């Protein structure tokens, strides 16, 4: 937060270069005001990402501890906003690997395969590989990482001989991606992850045709077999827009 403020002040002083001085000398106070508003704007964004409504809901639906974990998440996001991309990736990856213990879907949800929302994962204090991916994807998108650089990738964990899922980050379209995995806290290049065999990756945006986005959620009647849609509808109800 401090670093962000100093950055903005530096920006403001740069605007006061000699060529603009005449134009901008007078409304210095106004600019300072804008800076403050911008700072609060970031704060306000984080409040939207994890809204009070969701925290209250967690308290009702689960317990105070669940609400506390959501508050913690919000604080984490607030701290990470405006940070470098590298810090954001590492911070988000670490937060969920730490806060959410791995529990299989069969154990946790009594279902074969359940895509839980971050609210549910933090609330129930447990999740499996997809749940980590979803929570990290949501957090990163909210922090401003371009959607096109993120891919959700179906993989096979070779040593465990298990279906697995990771979130990949592509700095450029043709680059080898970075892998955010709940099996390890380190973020490594995909080429270093010899323990994983990629199967297929998808762009979450493509799964959802633009004009159908609003409808499905508003109608509240998505296809239950389309997990991504199901997830989005659920998250919408929990106060978070994916």
């Amino acid at each position, binding site marked *: 937060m401090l670093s962000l403020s100093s950055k903005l002040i530096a920006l403001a002083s740069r605007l006061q270069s000699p060529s603009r001085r005449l134009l901008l000398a007078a409304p210095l106070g106004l600019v300072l005001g804008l800076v403050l508003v911008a700072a609060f704007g970031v704060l306000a964004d984080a409040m939207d990402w994890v809204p009070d409504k969701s925290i209250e809901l967690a308290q009702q639906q689960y317990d105070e501890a669940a609400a506390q974990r959501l508050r913690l998440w919000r604080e984490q996001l607030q701290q990470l906003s405006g940070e470098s991309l590298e810090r954001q990736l590492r911070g988000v990856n670490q937060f969920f690997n730490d806060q959410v213990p791995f529990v299989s879907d069969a154990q946790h949800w009594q279902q074969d395969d359940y895509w839980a929302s971050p609210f549910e994962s933090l609330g129930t204090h447990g999740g499996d590989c997809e749940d980590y991916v979803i929570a990290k994807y949501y957090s990163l998108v909210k922090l401003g990482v371009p959607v096109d650089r993120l*891919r959700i990738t179906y993989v096979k964990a070779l040593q465990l001989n298990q279906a697995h899922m990771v979130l990949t980050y*592509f700095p450029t379209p043709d*680059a080898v*991606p970075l892998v955010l995995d709940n099996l390890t806290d380190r973020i490594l290049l995909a080429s270093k992850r010899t323990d994983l065999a*990629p199967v297929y990756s998808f762009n979450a945006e*493509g799964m959802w*045709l633009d004009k159908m986005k609003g409808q499905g959620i508003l109608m509240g009647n998505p296809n239950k077999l389309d997990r991504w849609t199901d997830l989005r509808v659920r998250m919408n109800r929990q106060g978070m827009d994916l």
Partner: protein
Amino acid sequence: MTLRQQFSLLTSALVLALMTGSLLLTVSNGRAFFQQQLDARAYDAATALALSMSNLAEADEVSLQRQMDVLFDRGFFQRIELHMVSGRVLQRQADAALVHSAPTWFRRWLPLSTEPAEADVVAGWSRLGKVKVVSHTDFAYRDLWAMVRQETLWFVAVAMLALLALQGLLSWMLRPLARVEQQAQALCERRWQLQSDIPKTRELGSMVRAMNRTVSTLKRIFSEQSALAERLREEAFHDAVTGLLNRRGFDQRLEHLLSSGEGYRGVLMLLQLRDFARFNQQQGRQQGDELLQSVAQALVQWLPSEALCGRRTGADFVVFLPGSDQQSAQQRLTHCFEHLASGILNDRQNQVFHLGGVWLEGERGQLSQALSAADEALRHCQRNAQSDCYLDSGNGAKAASQPRSAGLWRQQLQQALEQRDIELLYLPVFTHPGAEQPLQLEVISRVKCGDDWLSGARFWPLAEQHQLASGFDLLIVEAVLEVMLKAMQQGDGLPCCINLSPSTICDEAACQRLLQRLASVPELCPLIAFEVPEFAIAHIELRLQQLATQLAEIGVQLGVDQVGSGRQAFSYLQRLPLNYVRLAGHLNRNCHAAADQRFYLQSMVQIAHSQALSVFAEGLEHEADVAVVREAGVDGLSGYFFSEPWQAPV
């Protein structure tokens, strides 16, 4: 706009709105469904293609292109593109899949969007590119268009059926309404129609019942009024014991005859039973009444229908018998005497009676003179103690005219018919005293017979007797039409009324000739009225009904004259399609002096007006009578009080 049209319009609009709404809903739902299917197919195809490309062992361009070809050649896609990460783009594209899918306006009206569905192609961890698939809309349009066409056809068929059924239902439901309308129409034409078929629909049913009640009530009112008038007539003019005319009835009729101006010829006879008071004392009143009734019956049996017959007082009877000449009058008097003497008053009865008569002939005469002359003749024969009869030749000077034989009469009448020796007089009928234009001209005819001009009263019985009446009727009609045509050319419409004799009405050929002649002058028809005497109606009613209908069709009016003179029931007024009635002249004679007569007049006018008939009064001579008649509500007046018959119509 009729009720049926309004119903039809409303229901048609409703059906149309429902059907159109349903059609639009179907179309829009269909479009949404097809849109979803198109998107889903594109997305599935993109995912499947991308997955299969990602699993290629050697991802060179040719292999990738072939993969796209496989999918594209299935024919369901408009465009398939592969955007490689390197920036290269592989694609297949086609504009139209089908020659005729749907008209352009239809495509414009229901746009199907073609968003490309995207899916990533990967090779191991790294991305190879992005597949974009766009579905072809032609198939969706073809199916949607077919659906809309079928739906529209179905809609049109159902709408037509529904409207047809509606028309049928409406005409079935509204039939009672049409029948009530007919009923009301019939009521205006004085026909009492009852509907036996009461509709089950509650409102219509009560309407029909109410209408039936109205008709029944009106019918009852008419019958009651007729019965009342008939009873009044009976009490005012008829003798309660014998049913013959009473003194007043007889005197009025005879006076009207004598003073009508049309001339009179006939014998007035007085019959008196001797010592009837003693008969009453000895035999009792009832026996006396029975005797009187027998004598009356015998007289009525013997007398022709045009004769007047009455009982004056006690055992005094009076008879006026129209006749052609004095010689035949003598014969008839003798015949009458013998009829009585050999029948009801024969020797065994021991009842002496005397019959005295006087021959009356002239243009205008006095009642009192005629009666005293007859009285004198009676007293003359009463000098004989036995039953006797005597005819006084009246004022002898008049008796000079030679009696003519039947053959001569016939010859002279035929001559008159051939030479058209007739003369027309016009008696104007006015709506009120002082009116400038007459309402109607009643045509009075005279015929030249030999050297004499015969008045209608004299001539018509002869014409009837020799079966020449219909010939004279047609001659008169022809003559009147000529006069009317001439007046019409000068711009005057002359409303004329012509008497038709009963034998003309019974002669079908004559009626046909009459109708044909009238049809040739349609412009005059509304001005013409025919009238027949009331006493003839009983015999000719069926034929008259037929003729009346035919006359009504061409707009000629029909009336009845001498109404109220006979003992005819008034029910014919509602059976025949008449336009007016002319009350018998004697009814208004001295009516200012007699309350019961005024009352009778009043009820006659009411009955006629209740049947929407005009009422005319004729033979008015005194101002006091005119006032009474006008008060009774009569629509037209005529008589010497207003004018003598005109020689020329204008």
